[in-house]
């Protein structure tokens, strides 16, 4: 018995080192660039991917018709070396560069783009971003299965011409041509992605270790316009912001895409970190959805008052770490933030030009002054914001006039309690507690806070079973349309049940308006309706947050948070 006992014990003890030698991964050599890329990517098929970690990888291993210049944010040649747009702005003709190859050495032609784009639109394939191409003639009816694939106006001429006809001018169409869903997919991919599937970008996947890293190496068959500087790139699957920070501090990563909120004040102020910390204005808005069917939010006076008492500057500074900008309306307003960014970069000796995000959109220039409905950004003072800035006294007056009871005055009806619904992750609870405090102190409104796991939260939000719910929106393309089509009647992501005929009309007119200036005016009118009557309470314009090692060069801050690896290289520092 003794010997059996010893044998079992010995076997158990020895199994661990044996297992260690057997299962420990072979050490990959060093990479030129290591990116702590966030969550382990889901699908990296261009038609199926939805998140930013996936997008960064797809941009490196695929190449679209066009690329976005990280300096000017203008579309530049990718697979297409030139293009023509008809005078009406509805017909695009792209010339595919001759001699392009897939990473398996086969020819890449205009037909590959046509097939990929039709697959993206195919209603039965269920690509989440298929609607990016719905303005193509014939696309909408095919997506409703009323017509066929052949009737969609995406055509080829020979191997090198791709022609697209749109229902109406889409000013952001060239920008779309650089986006991940519109990248060409290999004919044999059949919905799959990974090392075995050929791609056409400057890099290919060498290995994919689940929940560890995806390693890219240069694609020997790449014939595109870029000259990538990096030979080996590692995308680490590191979910935790703290761990990303640790890896960067230890020199084991060069770019951390997520940092813990608690570290942001140090990253901003500490000299060792501040030159690596890029918190740049970003085309995203944080807001609350309001349920206009429930009292007291059905009263516009209450909606106006709960907004007026908010000192958004204080929220951004004290609660959010200081990087985000107060929202002045529903479209994020990067202009003042961009100005600040420009100054910050000049201080650092950088001379890169930062561009306005929505050229032609005077943006939050809508003010409370009806004489000057449109102003340039530099002229706007906080008291002229669309939300009239921060004015608790005015808020109380408004409520009193409407017959509600406010602190310091016993008359009027008591305001029913509100419930704030937020997802349980991130800084949402801090924001909710701040709102609870301010509304109670200034207006005497009782607020309860309900925190929910993300998918349960989405489920409640979708069924509009809330008073106020935490929300955010990041633009799919740099145009007001990406924000303002969100709340048209029946839009799939409205999640408010709100419907306003006048608003719908303005949005429809703006979408169909070919003249830029007129379009922008229509967008501004639509935004004004949304702010005055609509179900939104904007809080702050988002900022991107990247921590980038000094060894990385060519990382150019921009309001799209677009960082093409083709432009990035390592310095010897």
């Amino acid at each position: 018995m003794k010997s059996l006992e010893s044998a079992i014990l010995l076997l158990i003890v020895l199994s661990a080192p044996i297992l260690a030698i057997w299962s420990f991964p072979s050490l990959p050599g060093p990479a030129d660039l290591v990116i702590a890329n966030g969550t382990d990517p889901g699908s990296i098929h261009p038609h199926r991917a939805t998140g930013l970690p996936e997008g960064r990888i797809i941009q490196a291993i695929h190449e679209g018709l066009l690329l976005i210049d990280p300096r000017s944010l203008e579309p530049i040649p990718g697979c297409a070396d030139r293009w023509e747009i008809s005078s009406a702005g509805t017909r695009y003709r792209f010339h595919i560069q001759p001699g392009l190859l897939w990473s398996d050495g086969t020819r890449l032609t205009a037909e590959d783009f046509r097939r990929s784009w039709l697959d993206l639109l195919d209603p039965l394939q269920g690509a989440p971003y298929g609607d990016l191409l719905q303005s193509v003639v014939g696309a909408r009816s095919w997506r409703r299965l009323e017509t066929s694939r052949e009737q969609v106006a995406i055509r080829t001429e020979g191997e090198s011409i791709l022609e697209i006809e749109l229902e109406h001018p889409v000013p952001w169409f060239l920008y779309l041509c650089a986006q991940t869903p519109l990248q060409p997919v290999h004919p044999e991919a059949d919905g799959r992605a990974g090392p075995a599937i050929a791609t056409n970008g400057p890099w290919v996947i060498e290995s994919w270790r689940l929940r560890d890293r995806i390693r890219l190496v240069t694609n020997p068959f790449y014939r595109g316009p870029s000259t990538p500087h990096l030979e080996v790139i590692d995308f680490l699957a590191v979910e935790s912001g703290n761990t990303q920070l640790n890896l960067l501090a230890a020199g084991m990563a060069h770019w951390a895409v997520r940092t813990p909120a608690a570290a942001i004040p140090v990253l901003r102020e500490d000299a060792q970190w501040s030159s690596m910390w890029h918190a740049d204005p970003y085309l995203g808005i944080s807001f609350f959805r309001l349920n206009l069917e429930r009292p007291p939010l059905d009263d516009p006076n209450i909606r106006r008052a709960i907004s007026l008492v908010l000192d958004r500057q204080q929220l951004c500074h004290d609660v959010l770490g200081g990087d985000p900008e107060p929202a002045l309306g529903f479209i994020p307003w990067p202009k003042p933030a961009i100005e600040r960014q420009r100054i910050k970069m000049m201080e650092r000796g950088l001379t890169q030009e930062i561009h306005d995000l929505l050229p032609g959109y005077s943006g939050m220039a809508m003010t409370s002054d009806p004489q000057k409905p449109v102003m340039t950004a530099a002229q706007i003072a906080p008291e002229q914001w669309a939300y009239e800035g921060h004015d608790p006294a005015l808020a109380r007056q408004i409520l009193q006039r409407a017959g509600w009871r406010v602190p310091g005055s016993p008359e009027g009806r008591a305001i029913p309690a509100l419930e704030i619904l937020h997802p349980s992750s991130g800084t949402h609870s801090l924001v909710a507690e701040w709102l609870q405090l301010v509304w109670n102190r200034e207006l005497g409104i009782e607020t309860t806070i309900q925190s929910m796991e993300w998918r349960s939260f989405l489920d409640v939000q979708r069924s509009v079973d809330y008073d106020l719910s935490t929300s955010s929106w990041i633009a799919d393309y740099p145009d007001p349309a990406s924000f303002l089509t969100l709340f048209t009647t029946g839009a799939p992501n409205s999640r408010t049940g709100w419907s306003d005929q006048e608003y719908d009309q303005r949005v429809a007119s703006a979408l169909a308006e070919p003249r830029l200036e007129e379009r922008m005016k229509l967008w501004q009118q639509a935004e004004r309706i949304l702010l005055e009557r609509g179900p939104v309470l904007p809080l702050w314009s988002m900022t991107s947050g990247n921590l980038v090692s000094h060894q990385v060069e060519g990382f150019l801050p921009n309001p799209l948070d677009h960082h093409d690896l083709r432009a990035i290289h390592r310095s010897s520092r």
Partner: protein
Amino acid sequence: MSSLLMRRLLASLITIWAVFTLSFFIIHAAPGGPFDANRDPPADVKRAIEARYHLDAPLWSQYLDQLVGWIQLDPGPSLRQPDHDVASILAAGFPISLLLGSLALILGTTVGVLLGILAALRPGGVLDQLIVVTASIGLALPLYVIAGLLVLGVSFGLGWLPPAGWQTIPSLVLPVLCLSLLPAAQSARLIRSGLIEMSTEEFARTARAKGLSPFSVLLFHCLRPALIPLVATLAPTAAALLTGSLVVEQIFAIPGVGMHFIQGALNRDYPLVLGAVLLYTVLLQLLSLLADLLTWILDPRLRGEVR
């Protein structure tokens, strides 16, 4: 013995099926679905995506599909990572968790048993009190606090070990240390109390009366019976350690399977959650069987009963 083994195996199979069935219906009862996002695609596109993964089928039919899939060891693709099937996701992470967990188990148990013996040598003495307090702290402190302190001190203070990553053998040290704390503290307490209890038994008194030193009595006469309760608690501890730890995997960026239990559920990645739960259940059943076997070896009284 063999009929006992057969009965145990049958009970294990029924347990595994029951856990699978319960887990399937509980995870499907949770609100929301795997393809919910801040930006929903239009309703018909969403229906097409759900149809691709048979999520439009009635629940009982999905249940049968999954059950048959698992019986054939081919549960299909993960819903969040459709480029990979669930079996390969678990197969990629399990050796890593197994390695970390077994190293932590061996280290923790060995250290714990040694500390338990030292503490039992002089109950109430300074060493005993020190070990009891340390073990209590080890049990009480949350793992993320210990891990954070270790990273701060060992990686950034002393610069000895990498703070995270799964690249070199040194990157194993901190996660193994963290994971070994719980089994070390548990076994130190169990062995200490077991030895103290055993040393009051008649056989120990007889041994001492025969002139054996207290140390020899503890080591050669009391340790063996004192190990029995430890072996019994080791099965669930080992199953938990070998299937990874969410906290340790997250802090040290370890690509094990521990994360799938939480993330799979949060993402409503139904097949992946079921896979993770099945992995844990099967392992727990196997280890319980092993623990029974070990107890049987350690305790001669049981052998008589089984025969």
